[in-house]
């Protein structure tokens, strides 16, 4: 085996394994995002509805999730919950963990998007006697969504990178693959460098795409 710091041949040879890892990273990010969007919406609606007990509970839950590290939450789901009889496969646990963690941030994003709407829009809807459902789905959300979507897009990119933490609960996503290769071949430079490069390329391209999309869909255009 070559003892140089960087071996192109080796780097090339591990690329397929790393790309397998990327697939898992993307799958985790995709489903984690879906869960975070859905749960975040639930938190937002419960917050807005001002239901006794439920609203304060959600308020606390959101603050709690935002106030503890994702790593601790993942460990808890993976290592502690099984003691209480709730044992899920690593990937499922990871996707749930990501989804729940980011749902707290999604809830904040939704709220900011909705609160950003000028008061006059609510008043116009109110004086026209529009039904509540129509106010939300016809007036508020179509306008808020244009502010919310780009921010949610950034969150997905953030999740894509943070999903590396799933490697700590044995999910063989991109970083998990890189670490496994490193310990298998006692070479860490190539797998970790490549993993970092892949994270960067995907994030960078996504961010650029998002920004150009955002430019084309600015509010009012």
């Amino acid at each position, binding site marked *: 085996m070559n003892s140089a710091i960087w071996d192109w041949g080796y780097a090339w040879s591990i690329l397929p394994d790393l790309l397998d890892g990327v697939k898992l990273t993307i799958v985790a990010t995709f489903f984690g995002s879906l869960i975070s969007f859905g749960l975040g919406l639930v938190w937002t609606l419960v917050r807005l509805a001002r239901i006794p007990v439920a609203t304060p509970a959600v308020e606390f839950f959101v603050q709690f999730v935002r106030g503890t590290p994702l790593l601790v939450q993942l460990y808890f789901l993976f290592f502690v919950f099984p003691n209480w009889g709730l044992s899920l496969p690593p990937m499922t646990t990871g996707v749930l963990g990501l989804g729940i963690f980011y749902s707290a941030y999604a809830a904040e994003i939704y709220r900011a998007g909705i609160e950003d709407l000028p008061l006059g829009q609510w008043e116009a809807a109110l004086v026209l*006697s529009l039904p509540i459902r129509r106010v939300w789905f016809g007036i508020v959300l179509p*306008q808020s969504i244009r502010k919310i979507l780009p921010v949610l897009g950034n969150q997905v990119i953030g999740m894509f990178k943070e999903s590396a933490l799933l490697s700590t609960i044995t999910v063989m996503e991109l970083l998990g693959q890189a670490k496994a290769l490193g310990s298998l071949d006692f070479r860490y430079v190539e797998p970790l460098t490549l993993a970092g490069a892949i994270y960067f390329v995907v994030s960078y391209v996504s961010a650029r795409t998002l920004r150009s999309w955002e430019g084309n869909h600015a*509010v009012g255009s």
Partner: protein
Amino acid sequence: MRSVAEPIALAPAHRASSLAAPALVSMRGVRKSYGDRLIVDSIDLDVAAGEKVALIGPSGSGKTTILRLAIGLVKPDAGTIRIAGDYLWHEEGPGGLRPAGERHARKVRRSIGIVFQQFNLFPHMTALENVREPLVHVLGLPRKESDARATELLCDVGLKDHLSKRPAQLSGGQQQRVAIARSLALQPKVMLFDEVTSALDPELVGEVLRVVRKLAQASDMSMLIVTHEIGFAADIADRVLMFDAGRIVEEGTPRQVLKNPSNPRTQQFLRAVLER
């Protein structure tokens, strides 16, 4: 919908008889303060069917708050408000009046409309969609019929050629005319105009005032009009109310209040406005 262009002779006799009818807006002892600032101080106000009432007075005198109270955007701290006979924030029961909430207010609000200073059009909808919104979602009219009526309403305010434009593609005057058409869609019995030209460039004020004037002359709606356009108020109002510090300090016909004001505050206010 009675078309704005449709000529209706409003003979003085008609006016006189309509004044005898029960008031369409009726406020008793209405008070509103924000924090420790008293904005509206025990106002009694009746607007008869078909009556056009102009509200004048300095900024912060409570004129706009009176309109917002009338349509239920603001809840009074005390007093009662009735629109077309129905209490806005109370329900009449066997044991007398009892407080009612937003759900009840929504029903009463159907018979009253408002045009805002800042238009408040829905920016993601075309002019036609803005006007169609209440027709489809409040009256439940079929799409075709609501399109036809929305088109008619927009033609009446002179926007035939702008049906499919978004608010951002329209001038302020055009936007305000869309807002007027939209507020007429539900055929309210009472219309409120809240300084509808104050946000407009000076050259656009005329087109909006013309529409409101035409509406005031042609329709039998009651109107409450907050305005700084004194000449306009003199033209269209049956009655003028002068507000100061949350109270009506003078009221009467335009001739009395605007030409020969007796209250020193009114005299001072008119001097300041007309010298502008």
